[in-house]
């Protein structure tokens, strides 16, 4: 599985409206993208290999050259989503930011990325829960240590105010609810709450409230500018 994952990262998450550059993306990436889009449209349960094959403009034989089955393809799609979000989050802050600020900035861009491509949000919440509950553990491991590291750098780690694993679950539930309510494109509305969740385990309630307020103000400011 690993050897195919190479230079195709520039696609998808960040430029959801880009024209389909069929020749530019590898077959494997096209399959993964088709899986994500189909999950967004009709959930994983209702997605068939036929849907994926049609969406990726490849043959059924080609699909099976890359993936054993639908489930394996889903696993690859989850990994892809997590990688994309990690990159987006890492690029959003610098080493000079205080941990609370860095967390707020990372959360802001992750929510924007999810809103720009609701299929990612659908996969990482509703579908991951339905298909492979343990998949959650995989990307929780990609998230929590990264947040912890931000606070460790500033010498404020070691004291957990609340459980970060629970905060992660809350994040998922809130995103899932937003999708279920048909408001996937308005995920950034959750920004103050998600920032609170991301900061409070490490920075505590007061710091989390403070960052949450900053996030709310900057979101309001952006809305005014638009």
């Amino acid at each position, binding site marked *: 599985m690993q050897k195919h994952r190479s230079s195709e990262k520039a696609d998808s998450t960040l430029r959801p409206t880009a024209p389909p550059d069929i020749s530019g993306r590898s077959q494997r990436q096209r399959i993964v993208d088709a899986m994500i889009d189909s999950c967004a449209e*009709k*959930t994983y*349960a*209702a997605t068939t290999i036929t849907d994926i094959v049609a969406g990726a403009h490849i043959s059924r034989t080609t699909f099976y050259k890359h993936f054993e089955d639908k489930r394996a393809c889903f696993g690859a799609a989850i990994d892809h989503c997590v990688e994309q979000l990690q990159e987006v989050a890492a690029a959003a802050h610098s080493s000079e930011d205080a941990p609370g600020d860095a967390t707020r900035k990372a959360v802001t861009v992750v929510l924007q990325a999810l809103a720009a491509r609701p299929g990612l949000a659908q996969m990482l919440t*509703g579908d991951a*829960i*339905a*298909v492979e*509950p*343990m998949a959650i553990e995989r990307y929780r491991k990609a998230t929590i240590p990264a947040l912890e590291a931000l606070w460790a750098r500033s010498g404020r780690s070691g004291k957990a*105010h*609340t*459980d970060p*694993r*629970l905060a*992660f*679950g*809350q*994040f*998922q*539930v*809130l995103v*899932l*609810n937003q*999708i*279920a*309510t048909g408001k996937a494109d308005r995920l950034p509305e*959750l920004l*103050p*709450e998600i920032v*609170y*969740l991301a900061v*409070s385990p490490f920075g*505590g*309630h*007061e710091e989390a*409230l403070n960052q*949450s*307020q900053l996030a*709310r103000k900057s979101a309001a400011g952006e809305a005014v500018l638009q």
Partner: protein
Amino acid sequence: MIDSPGDLRRWRLPRGRHGLPRELVERSQRERLLAAVVRVTVANGYESTTVGDILGEAGVGRESFYELFDDKLDCMLAAHKGLVDSLGEQVREVYLVEGPWPPRMRAALAVTLDWFAADPEVARFTLVEISTVGPAFRPIFQAGFARAVALLREGMGECGPKPELAQATELAVGAILARIYEEVVLGRAAELPRLLPDLTYELLVPFIGEEQARAAAQP
């Protein structure tokens, strides 16, 4: 094999000939079918469960099934609704009473944890199996979530969410769901009641801060 138990029963007990009022028979059949869909889907998964499997477990005939439900999904959703209703009623009883909010919140949480711990199969059905029914899951999830948020708000009084965290109630419902879901998936539903102090604390912090939440979590 698939629906023979149901067929046999129907042979022995033709409808309308055994002197029991039709309504009573249907009610007991309905209840047996609802219990059966829980057991069977948890054991085999929703996708591989057939109506025949449900009939076999319930000892009810195919014809009666289709008089009560449109299909497998309809039966599944009816069972889910019945379970969620019963949990909601139990929570209302301890939560919507007189007194300060934090201890009532703790009591509501205790009832919820006990409910899920009482029957791990039911817990799995209510939280995990239901998520595998495909697109129908979205409205179910959304309705359940909205209902929980509304109930929590109803009993909140003056401890309502502060403006800087407008959706604190959603956070609280999210915490309950996420924690119970995780324990259920890991097969630890029976141990849920032990989480009461920690989870009470986590729930209350966004509303009343760390200090007061700590006090309310360990009365």
